[in-house]
């Protein structure tokens, strides 16, 4: 028996909008600690990790660990039927082949039940290691989103370079080149507008803008985005989900074609 009641139902709606473009089908895992998801995109290049801790739910009952395969497009369709202020409850019986989403309007005058078929999805859980990064950039998520969108109208890839001075996003394409530098800025009145750079070593990595752009679909979840870079590790683009969890996107850097040709 599973019953998860989320007062701020809009969070779940935003989570689905954030990942449905990248991942078509995925298993949601429920355990005593929380509601989580780990999935690859269809070309197995990027990885998404979502965590909603049990404490964040108003009511959290999960009798035993349960993995529910869902088509994220279909799930998003159902969640779009929930109002932004609605309370969302996820319910499933053990061994059932369906999951139920219940939407309650804030004043309890409307209650909707949506039942969705579950899927069988082969997937294996990958233990993502904790690691230290050469550079961590925190910046307004809207700013990051805008930068990725702007650069993708010029080129296919973005080079993210972090130095003491700031973080530089650059691209090149048929029509020309673009460079955007964001400087460290801690002095703003609103903390959500700050740009903070923690750097151990300068780092410069190249990424496919296609993926970066789909990561930024998570911007409505959080005012700030955290980008963690290391030359040996995939970049982590993290959006906090209130106090209750996070959504993290992992993407391996691109390498120059030349290197591969030598092989």
């Amino acid at each position, binding site marked *: 028996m599973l019953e998860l009641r989320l007062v701020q139902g809009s969070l779940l709606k935003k989570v689905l909008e954030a990942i449905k473009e990248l991942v078509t089908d995925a298993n949601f895992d429920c355990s005593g600690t929380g509601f989580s998801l780990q999935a690859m995109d269809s070309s197995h290049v990027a*990885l998404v990790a979502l965590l909603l801790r049990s404490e964040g739910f108003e009511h959290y009952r999960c009798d035993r660990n349960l993995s529910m395969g869902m088509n994220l497009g279909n799930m998003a369709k159902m969640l779009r039927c929930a109002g932004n202020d609605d309370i969302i409850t996820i319910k499933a019986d053990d061994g059932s082949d369906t999951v139920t989403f219940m939407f309650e309007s804030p004043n309890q005058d409307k209650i909707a039940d949506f039942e969705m078929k579950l899927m069988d999805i082969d997937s294996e859980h990958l233990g993502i290691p904790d*690691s230290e990064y050469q550079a961590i950039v925190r910046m307004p998520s809207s700013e990051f989103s805008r930068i990725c969108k702007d650069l993708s109208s010029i080129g296919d890839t973005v080079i993210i370079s972090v130095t003491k001075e700031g973080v530089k996003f650059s691209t090149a394409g048929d029509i020309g080149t673009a460079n955007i530098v964001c400087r460290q800025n801690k002095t703003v009145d609103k903390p959500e507008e700050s740009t903070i750079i923690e750097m151990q070593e300068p780092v410069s990595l190249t990424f496919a803008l296609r993926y970066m752009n789909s990561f930024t679909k998570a911007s409505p979840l959080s005012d700030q985005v955290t980008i963690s870079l290391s030359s040996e590790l995939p970049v982590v683009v993290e959006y906090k989900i209130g106090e209750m969890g996070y959504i993290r996107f992992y993407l*391996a850097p691109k390498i120059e074609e*030349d*290197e591969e040709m030598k092989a």
Partner: protein
Amino acid sequence: MVKIVTYNVNGLRPRVAQHGSLRRLLDSLDADIICFQETKLSRQDLSGDVIMAEGYEAFISCNRTSRGRGVYSGVATFCRVSSAFASQDVALPVAAEEGFSGLQGSAKDNKIIGDFVLEMPMEEEDLGEITREELLRVDSEGRCIITDHGHFVLFNIYGPSIGEDDEERVRFKLLFYKVLQRRWEFLLALGKRVFVVGDLNIAPSSIDRCDAPPGFEKQMFREWLRSMLREHGGPFFDAFRSKHPEREGAYTCFNQAVGAEEFNYGSRIDHILVSGVCFHHCNSVEDHSIFHCHVEDCEIMNRFRRGDPENNSKWKGGRSSKLEGSDHIPVYMVLNGIPEVPLHNTPSSAARYLPEIRGRQQSIVSFLSKGKTYEVEDGPGLNMPRDRANESCCSDDLESKSISKEELSTGITEFSQGVNIPSPMCKRRNLDHWLNEGSSGNSQNSNVTLLAAHGMKASFSGTKSMSNKRNKRNLPSQPTIKSFFQRPETKPGDANISSLVSSVDTGPAMDESCCPKDDSLPENIQCTAAVDEDQDNSNMPCSLSTDKCNVATLEWQRIQQRMKMTLPVCKGHCEPCIPRSVKKGSNIGRLFYVCARAQGPSSNPEANCNHFQWASVKSKGKRQ
């Protein structure tokens, strides 16, 4: 000697950008008459930089219908001239006409070549009655420009490309060619020589298509085109095929969507057709004709083929690279013994007289050199890009100085640290690293400085190196998140290749990891020794010099390996597939995996193996 080139440019603006300027594009084709198709120019946003080039006169036709919002089809003929006025050049036409129906010349001054008049409404076999409106619609998509060069009339044609089951467009295409045929026959009856060049979107015979299916030649349009040829009783010589009757694998068009260049999986749909008598005064003899007596050569210009033929980069499902250039290859024909024509001027239908060009090109230059109209119009087209280049030089130059300084210093420190390490391998890597940094971070700027050094006369080689560099920068390959790291531990058989790849892939990462702080050196050596079993991979990342980091890196390598292994492999090559999703129909949105290789002839095992499999997802309800 007169050289004629036909080239489906697949967008004139991108080709101009690719070559640096229109003038360079035209010069690289080195011909007297250059016929472009699919210019994708709309009348509204014509500008000098894509139409006007010094030493060439342009004649253009743009799509006038709403199809493709104007940015669709379009043909342009460029004629190399020594002077726009009072010329005896054969290349400079004495008259030009947009469209083939003779209906477009509503303006009185537009001379209709050969005074061609169609009785409207007309009847045509298989097509029934054709109204003036319908014909005008067929003739308004910017698919034909006719230039009369005195000794011959040249048709620059972009034939419609249609889906076999689209009845409306099939009728469109049929009408297009049937009326064209009438025009050709009309001119031939007047004793004119007729040249037809362009992308006809018809491969006449099986030999002109890789892996032509049975019944290929039975298709209506292919039958029609063959019926136009001399071998089948028609008036025309297919110049290429008549010169090279046996040549196989000669193709001019390659499907972008399947990486067709890689295995020469193409078709020959760009043609040069010639018809008419020769210039000798003995027309009685049978084997005298413009083709036999004056066509010296006709060839496909393979050097314009996309991609690097020597070092063909793998297509990989189109993920790894966008090839630069058109999906077509130009075709040229050389004529000799064509006499000069009487003194004549540029016809009034030339692009230079279009209000879109003339009106917009009023610049200060036109006030400075009054009287020399042709220079006036050519001026802005040439000068503007230069100015722009200069501007960007200045600003970028400043930046490049500051950046290179900084990078230089970091590079040097890293390098000097590298020297401290007593391993020659590390030294070399550091050097590489330094070079890499320099070239990847700074290649743009260095290019610009290069340009600046060349000054106004930025030489062709300069631009070429720029486009090459840019290419490389555009083409970093996307490793699946796993290949980024580790050699595979399992399945030695099919993992061999990827281990090779991945060890090299790790290159840049290794580079940086090889410059640890001095004090951490012994520790690093220990840890790498512990980590590596037998490979000379003595460059395990350890720059952060914490065990935790090493663990994380190794763990990520394992994860990425797993991610790669879970990608389906194709049955033909046991290589990872690429994902696609269904675009229409009842299965819309459903994910499937296909072979990542480029399409090629079925006889070639290296080409796409047609592997297909659905992504393994089942509805739980169905299972029960």
